[in-house]
């Protein structure tokens, strides 16, 4: 990806503004209600936001995609389901830890998906790691291939046979086969 220099400066400025506004909100160094005003925090914010901008300005705002708004709404609809899965994951692991016989049977599985974009692959990888009994080891972005460590047969089958999560993520990013 090569960008013109002007474009790059504009991008850095946008990232800096976002980061600095977030810093001002979080540090609460300007409070009009009680007249509180803290120059130390304001200057420290400029330095910190500047360093972060220099290091990672090309990460926050990337190339524009298509149908970003629709994808965002679909992602928001996906989050409650994901939270429920996280809840189940913890009870699953707690059960396996506390059970006297430790019902674990670890295995490594591999499967292909229809996903290609960075964001979709990252979302699925994070979702796999957060849900019951599976952790992503590696991804091959070109083929959409995932290498996953599963702690028992049941969570492995949930990925290989049911494919609920893969289909949900593909739906969110509109990358179905």
């Amino acid at each position, binding site marked *: 990806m090569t960008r013109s220099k002007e474009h790059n400066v504009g991008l850095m400025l946008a990232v800096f503004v976002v980061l600095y506004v977030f810093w001002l909100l979080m540090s609460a160094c300007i409070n009009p209600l009680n007249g509180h005003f803290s120059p130390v925090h304001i200057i420290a914010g400029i330095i910190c936001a500047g360093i972060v901008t220099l290091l990672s300005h090309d990460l926050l705002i990337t190339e524009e995609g298509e149908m970003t708004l629709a994808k965002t709404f679909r992602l928001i609809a996906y989050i409650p389901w994901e939270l429920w899965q996280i809840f189940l994951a*913890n009870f699953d*692991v*707690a059960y396996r*830890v506390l059970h006297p016989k430790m019902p674990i049977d*670890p*295995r490594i599985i591999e499967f292909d998906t229809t996903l290609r974009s960075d964001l979709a692959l990252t979302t699925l990888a*994070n979702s796999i790691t957060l849900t019951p009994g599976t952790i992503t080891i*590696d991804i091959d972005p070109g083929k959409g291939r995932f290498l996953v*460590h599963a702690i028992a047969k049941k969570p492995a089958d949930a990925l290989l046979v049911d494919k609920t999560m893969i289909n949900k993520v593909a739906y969110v990013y509109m990358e179905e086969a």
Partner: protein
Amino acid sequence: MFSIINIIATILIAGGAFFMVTGVLGLLRFPDFYTRLHATGKCDTLGEVLVIVGCMVYQGWSFITIKLFFLMFFIFLANPVGTHAIMKAAYLTGLKPWKKGEERR
């Protein structure tokens, strides 16, 4: 002292502590590196989030609640990435995963 908010907050924080303890037990009981990572990586997520939600309930509606909410958001993003990075590093260095029936390491 014994208002409903205090009780709810106590239950949430105690639940979080329970999951953290379970994670530590898993770290001690599970047979190899990969399975131990399952215990710590997953129990931490819900444990920390329950503690934070407990603090949010206890604090009530204020600026700190929003800060805690952002903290929760970043934990949800950072925790799986960290777990994945550690596991990938172990896999690339050639550590063999434990199979059922083997000696524990």
